[in-house]
């Protein structure tokens, strides 16, 4: 099994602040972590390798400091890692990101499975996985909650749906995105950390991947972020006065006026 796991570096907080002048995330003082959903993808990749043999390659597109999460991926069981980093890649939307990742996977040779987290905790789009599958022209399955078996070039798995789960079978190669129900990610090991310290992780630029500069980064993005803002939390309270009946009438009026009833 030749497995790729896509990882995104995200701010390790749920309390995201935005700089109103530049419309970008304020990253100072916030440690970067592996997108929590991606840790399940990595764990599943490592478990599949342990069961069926093969190799797990962690791949990420991002600034040079994204190297940290790739080293962490090696401490958690990935065999190799590749960082896609180039100024030309910056400002990418999901399409341009998927295009770059897919290009890097294609360059690495034949693969059996690409595993992604179901979505990132900062962008929350859940689009990169399916876009990659489309670009690589392979089947795609989202919200995978369990992989039942891989046999004779086919994968059988469970896709989580609101009412329970569906059992699906697909040919390989394929792209899947996994849900957090799929496993419990392991902690790093001392030997893994030692390995990650000495690991040589290549950095691939636009030229290395050999992609059209007009199809990556901001140039290759179909969408633009026009504005980002922290929604203001407005709390208003009004105390109704008078007799109970007057209060009830008043409340009804207000609910009707705001079309809540």
């Amino acid at each position: 099994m030749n497995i790729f796991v896509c990882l995104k570096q995200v701010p390790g907080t749920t309390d995201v602040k935005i700089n109103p002048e530049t419309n970008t995330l304020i990253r100072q003082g916030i440690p970067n972590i592996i997108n929590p959903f991606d840790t399940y993808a990595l764990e599943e990749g490592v478990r599949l390798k342990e069961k069926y043999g093969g190799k797990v390659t962690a791949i990420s597109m991002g600034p040079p400091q994204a190297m940290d999460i790739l080293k962490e991926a090696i401490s958690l069981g990935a065999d190799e890692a590749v960082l896609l980093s180039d100024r030309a890649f910056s400002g990418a939307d999901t399409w341009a990101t998927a295009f770059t990742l897919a290009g890097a996977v294609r360059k690495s040779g034949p693969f059996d499975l690409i595993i992604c987290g179901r979505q990132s905790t900062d962008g929350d789009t859940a689009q990169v996985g399916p876009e990659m599958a489309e670009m690589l022209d392979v089947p795609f399955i989202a919200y995978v909650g369990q992989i039942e078996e891989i046999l004779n070039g086919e994968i059988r798995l469970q896709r989580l749906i609101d009412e329970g789960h569906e059992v699906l079978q697909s040919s390989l190669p394929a792209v899947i995105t996994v849900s957090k129900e799929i496993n419990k990610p392991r902690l790093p090991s001392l030997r893994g950390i030692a390995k990650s310290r000495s690991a040589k992780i290549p950095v691939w630029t636009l030229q290395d991947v050999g992609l059209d500069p007009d199809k990556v980064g901001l140039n290759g993005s179909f969408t633009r972020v026009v504005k980002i803002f922290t929604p203001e939390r407005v709390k208003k309270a009004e105390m109704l006065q008078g007799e109970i009946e007057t209060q009830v009438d008043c409340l009804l009026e207000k609910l009707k006026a705001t079309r809540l009833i």
Partner: protein
Amino acid sequence: MQYFLTEEQKTIKDLARKIAEERILPVRAQLDEKEEFPWSIMKDIADSDLFRIFVPAEYEGLGYGCLELCLALEELSRACSGVAISFAVSALGSYTLIDYGSETLKRKYLPDIASGKKLAAFALTEPTAGSDASAIRTTAEKVAGGYLINGTKQFITNGGEAAVYTIIALTDKSKGTRGASAFIVDKDTPGFTFGKKEKKLGIRASATRELVFQNCLVPEENLISRPGMGFIMAMKLLDKSRPSVGAQAVGIAQGALEAAYDYTQQRVQFGQPLILQPVVQNMLADMALQVEAARSLVYAAARNVDSGKDYTESSAMAKVFASDVAMRVTTDAVQLCGGAGYMKDYPVEKMMRDAKITQIYEGSNQVLRSIIASELRKRKAANK
């Protein structure tokens, strides 16, 4: 306080803290309440390679020393020393084999201990032999095909859970302590059974049982070193492992200090947080300085062990001092948290119960003080 740890030592400490916070903290109250052996955490510890710390590299370990083991234990104990001791005793049960065992015996047992597939335990104490370890009665009689073991070991940590036991038994009753020998006994050896699981004041996640040997035949190659070396090896083992009891105590005390600090910061009385009261600040300051002094002594003692020079006295000092600190600091933590601290909804009462054993096991603090005093006299006599 800086202890100038190496990158590898910091990695071990950080990893142990991660395990403590992510895997131990959420379940420690439940493990304590239900007296549940923490098998799933033992698996996490194993997967993180922490059992490899104390096993030499030739036997699939990482070949680290006493200080590295202490760093891991301190962090695990900060969350729950009942879990930490279950891990630590695997080291205690392996050191005699590591230091004196035959190549064959080491190859057979150590790789599985390093991977965490098997836990180890050490058995010296008996109903008649606590502080007076020389009063043991368990015998190992030389017969065709090995040694026939008869007797009962008491209060054995990891008893019933461990797969590998290092036990001390008399091969020659006429020679007293010079007639004691050490053996490796597998859990499933016929004639080897376990008594009831003890109900304890603290470290309740750990398992403590009696080991019962009734005509239990152990192959001759399971003898560690020569017959008659058992008592000497056991005493050397305890000298080596005492800093790690100190490390447990430091971890417990650190956890209690942090819990008390958080509580006094949040609790408002007389219109202000408790921590603004000078009397409370005095108590917290005393606790902090005791914990730091204990930590310094434990790390220094662990480095003494790793240097290989004589460490009987420094090990005893570290264990006595740190365990007394743990008892005082946890008691003060309960005091600072007041009525809330006395309740099981808060972690400090557990820490106070857990601290007590560190003053008792692996040499009671009274016995160790007499060892320290005798080392003092020896030094005086040698005019050093």
